[in-house]
């Protein structure tokens, strides 16, 4: 096919060659002159009617052709927009992952902020400096003591026997300390006896854990005055001075949920629902006396955060 074309073309060319292939100089000169004149005229606006007439004729033709050719002409845009969309999908999904992570962290961060704010006001209420610490390990239940490990120790000025609080209330007390960690016996432990006072009647007693952390862990309250009856809704606070006894006073422990009389020993005991969820501890503070040297930041008793 092509071969035939070439043969024919070359025959034509030979025909053309025999005739005058180049145009007469006069015509070329005339056309060049015409072009130049048009260029000169176009700045004066004399061409504009011609231009608008051409536009009137070609405009509809262009729009018809472009409408007919839309499937073809849309192809590059389709390809372009496809890669654009792919890029967009990639960047949006990356953004989404990022935002999702932020959302997922959001609740956690908010809770920690609340805990920090709570610890700060707790320090002011108690009149003690609070050394902030994270709960980094829970002791296994098989050891029959409910303890947690926190990431602050003697370096931060923590000593055994010091009270550990969370923003909501009492957590427990420090039982052993290393340089960088401390073990905290939770108030929910069955061996933990916390001196307690009913905030309504000022009656004294002891709060004991039952060793279970399920449901946040409930505590038992036994009053020294066996004739006194705690009322449901009473707030139970710690009682002590933090020096001779292990707990400092004034730390909220929980509220009295219900009261029952023991059949075996005629003691009245009450179930106390602790303010602290012992199964979900994170940010805690160890109450240290004001002036204790420490390495990190500390929630100061005057309500500020500093050394």
């Amino acid at each position, binding site marked *: 096919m092509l071969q035939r074309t070439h043969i024919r073309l070359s025959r034509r060319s030979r025909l053309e060659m025999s005739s005058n292939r*180049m145009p007469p100089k006069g*015509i070329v000169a005339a056309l060049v002159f015409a*072009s130049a004149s048009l260029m000169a005229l176009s700045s004066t606006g004399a061409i504009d009617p011609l*231009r608008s007439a051409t536009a009137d004729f070609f405009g509809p033709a262009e729009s018809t052709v472009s409408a007919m050719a839309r499937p073809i002409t849309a192809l590059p845009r389709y390809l372009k927009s496809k890669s654009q969309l792919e890029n967009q999908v990639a960047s949006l999904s990356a953004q989404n992952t990022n935002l999702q992570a932020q959302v997922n962290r959001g609740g956690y961060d908010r809770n920690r902020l609340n805990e920090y704010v709570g610890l700060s006001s707790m320090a002011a209420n108690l009149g003690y400096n609070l050394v902030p610490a994270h709960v980094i390990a829970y002791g296994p239940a098989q050891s029959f003591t409910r303890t947690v490990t926190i990431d602050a120790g003697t370096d931060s000025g923590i000593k055994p026997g010091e009270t550990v609080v969370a923003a909501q209330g009492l957590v427990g007390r420090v039982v052993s300390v290393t340089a960088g960690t401390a073990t905290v016996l939770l108030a929910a432990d069955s061996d933990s006896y916390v001196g307690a006072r009913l905030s309504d009647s000022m009656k004294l007693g002891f709060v004991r854990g039952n060793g279970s952390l399920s449901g946040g862990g409930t505590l038992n309250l036994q009053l020294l005055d066996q004739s006194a009856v705690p009322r449901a809704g009473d707030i139970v606070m710690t009682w002590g001075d933090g020096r001779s006894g292990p707990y400092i006073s004034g730390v909220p422990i929980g509220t009295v949920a219900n009261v029952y009389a023991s059949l075996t020993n005629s003691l009245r005991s009450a179930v106390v629902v602790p303010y602290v969820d012992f199964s979900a501890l994170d940010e805690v503070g160890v109450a240290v006396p004001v002036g204790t040297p420490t390495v990190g930041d500390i929630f100061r008793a005057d309500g500020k955060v500093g050394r």
Partner: protein
Amino acid sequence: MKSTLAYIVLCAAAVVLQVSVFSPWAWNGIAADLVLLMVVAIGLARGGTYAVVCGFGAGLLLDLVPPSTDETGRWAMAMIVVALLASAIQPTSRRSMVATAAVCSFVGTSLYALIGVVLGDHLPSFGSMLGAILLGVLWDSAVAALLMPRIVRLFTRLQPHRV
């Protein structure tokens, strides 16, 4: 007469196709110059007066038809030169046709840009202008490789048989 009419229709069709179909395929704004290829084909097939007059007419159309806003006559002038150039070259094979198209594309577009410079047009830097011209040459060569032999054959058929 019949063939002259056919040339006019074909040139007008090329102008319309160029602005409505080829421009959307433009890469970096540079599209294949179908009208220029048309003029080259007429020059190759017919040569002489036909090619120059068709080149002038097609160029003028390109200058006038929207969305053109340039000085009227720029493309006309460039196309006259393209037609002369194509007429001067004897086509023997597809390869030489593509080469002719490439040379004509380069010369035509450069001339168009040059006239712009002379007329004081706002033009981009020399580098980007050269890039645009070379990209246009690539486009035109590609389209010429596909279509040029067929268009030339068509135009040769349109030629009235000589005795």
